[in-house]
Every structure is written in structure tokens, then in C-alpha cells.
């Protein structure tokens, strides 16, 4: 079977995720074992003071150092560089990026993989805005902001993908490497820029509807600052790409 030649490296950037890390790893391992795909999980911890790394060490003892890799960094350095750092240690030919806070459920990964094979896509992106996709734990205001922002983005950038700010995606390793060289933004805008650049470079993008369950442990963030930096980023991409 072709599946046996592919290996999937999951990059999990963490900061103070000691509650969530064991749970997400457990769900990941189960999902991969059930689907029979080869995998590794790379935990990139940015010096969490809450003992996230100690939890990761325990997980390595349970699941083995070939499945769980802890590749920490000294301090909080941002998402983009976390992916670069993680990729250096990745042995898979596909990279999966997702949040470690349980808002992205590993049960969708087999669907991502199926989708990727089906269309031989360079990127498969999870989408909250299509089909059975959706969110949990958002009030009407938050949903309105999300829908409004998404509509504005679609009108201005016509990106060819329905969920630009989401961060649950599967990439061919060399595609992600190439994109990382091109992308300069931070935060939400970083995820948007990845898709916009991907389209410029004529990479193909498949989509899989996902349910996004907002943080069970810890706090979710959407303040005025996020909205302002989102708009700034959107306009920057509008004017420069």
C-alpha cells in the first residue's frame, strides 16, 4: 500500500500547555494507529514555566522517542520560527501543523491524508466555513466578527481557500519549507499569508471541513488588538501580493 511509504510529522508548538499536551498526544496516537499511517509528533516548547516539557518527557517514556520528539527552545520566539525549528528535526515527507490546545481534533487527520492522496494536493487546509465545518464555544459576536472578517478577506484577496486564519493544515514538507522562506507576517496574518503565497507559487490546495472546539483549558483570545492587527495584515497583503 502506498500509505506505508508516507510519513507524517506533526508539529506542536506549545507554551504552557501541560494540561492539553498529554491529551492531544493521546488523541493523535490513537488517530494514527487506527488509520495505520506512519507518524511522529514533534513538540516545540518555548520554555514554558508550567512544566510542559516535563510532561513531554513522560509522554516520550510512554510512547517512545521515535514517536514523540521534544525539541524545545529557550524562550518564546513565535510560530513561524517554531515551524522552521520543528521541520529541521522532522523525518516525515508530510508536515501537519495544528494547535496543541485541543481546538483541532486529530480525528480529522485521516481525512486530510485521504484528501491529499485523492487530489495529489500540495496543501490540505482544514476549514470551519464549509460543509460540516463549524465552531464550538463562540458567541454570536465572535461568530459575526469571524464571518465578517472572512468575507472581507475573500473579497479583497480571492485566495482560493475558504479558511485563511485557521492553522490546522497538512503540507508537503518541501512546500512548507518554500513557504516559510517567503512568509514574514505574524499571528493570524501568518496563516493567511501562507495560503496567499501558496497560490502565488501555484501550489494546489484541498480543503476538509473541521469542527473547531474552542479551548477547553486555558483562555481563548480575541481582543481589539487582534482585530486591529488582523486588519493591518489584511491590508498589507492586499497592497503587496
Amino acid at each position, binding site marked *: 500500500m502506498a500509505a506505508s511509504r508516507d510519513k507524517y510529522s506533526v508539529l506542536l508548538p506549545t507554551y504552557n500547555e*501541560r*494540561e492539553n499536551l*498529554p*491529551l492531544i498526544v*493521546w*488523541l493523535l496516537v490513537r488517530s494514527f494507529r487506527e488509520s495505520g499511517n506512519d507518524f511522529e509528533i514533534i513538540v516545540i516548547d518555548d520554555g514554558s514555566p508550567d512544566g510542559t516539557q516535563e*510532561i513531554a518527557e*513522560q*509522554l516520550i*517514556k*510512554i510512547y517512545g522517542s521515535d514517536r514523540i520528539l521534544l525539541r524545545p527552545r529557550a524562550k518564546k520566539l513565535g510560530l513561524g520560527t517554531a515551524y522552521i525549528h520543528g521541520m529541521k528535526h522532522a523525518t516525515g515527507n508530510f508536515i501537519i501543523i495544528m494547535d496543541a490546545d*485541543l481546538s483541532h*481534533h486529530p480525528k480529522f487527520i485521516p481525512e486530510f491524508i485521504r484528501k491529499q492522496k485523492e487530489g495529489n494536493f500540495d496543501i490540505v487546509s482544514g476549514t470551519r*466555513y464549509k460543509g*460540516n*465545518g*463549524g*465552531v*464550538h*464555544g463562540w458567541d*454570536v459576536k465572535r*461568530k*459575526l466578527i*469571524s*464571518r*465578517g472578517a*472572512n*468575507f472581507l478577506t475573500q*473579497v*479583497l*484577496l*480571492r485566495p482560493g481557500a475558504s479558511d485563511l486564519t485557521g492553522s490546522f493544515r497538512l503540507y508537503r514538507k518541501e512546500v512548507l519549507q518554500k513557504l516559510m522562506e517567503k512568509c514574514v507576517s505574524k499571528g493570524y496574518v501568518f496563516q493567511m499569508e501562507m495560503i496567499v503565497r501558496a497560490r502565488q507559487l501555484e501550489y494546489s490546495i484541498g480543503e476538509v471541513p473541521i*469542527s*473547531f*472546539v474552542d479551548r*477547553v483549558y486555558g483562555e481563548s483570545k480575541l481582543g481589539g488588538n487582534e482585530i486591529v492587527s488582523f486588519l493591518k495584515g489584511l491590508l498589507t*497583503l*492586499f*497592497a*503587496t*501580493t
Partner: protein
Amino acid sequence: MYRFDTMTKLLQWLFMLALLGGTWATLTLNLLGLDPLPPPVYQVLWLLPTYLLVTFGCYSLGTVGYRLATFNDCEEAARELHAQIREARDDLAQRGMKF
């Protein structure tokens, strides 16, 4: 050669606006000095940008409103996740995990 699809989105918008705005201004202000347009045509043409703007505004509000109303709540996904969290904790504790 400057290709439309390699222009930035901003330039694409400006280009299209200039093209459409120019055509509209030429016709309404009769810049080419042609025979005047028949009054019914002129009346529609004169307000066309306003009509388009209002239509686009309505379309936007309608689309966002519809998508807001049909945004899935994923209650089932949340319940499933909570059940799995308990399962995961129990299983990991059995394997010697100290939370």
C-alpha cells in the same frame, strides 16, 4: 509586459475601478461629444454606480448574515471531545502518567 494576474490585489482593484469609472464618466459627461444618450438610458446610467454599491452592500450583508445564521455549533464535537478527554486521562494514568 504587465500581466493582470501578477499585479497586486490593490493594483487590480485600482485598474478595474479606473476602467469602469472612466467608461462611466465618459458616457455620463459625454466627453467624446457624441449624440446625447436617450433620457431613460441616461437616468439609469447616471445612478449606476450607486445601484451597484447598494447591491453589493446588500449582497455582503445578506451573505454574512446567512453564513452567521448557518454557522454550525458543533455541540456533538464538543461532547465527544469531553468524553475522550476523560478516556485519555484514565488511560494515561494507567500507563504511569503523572499529571
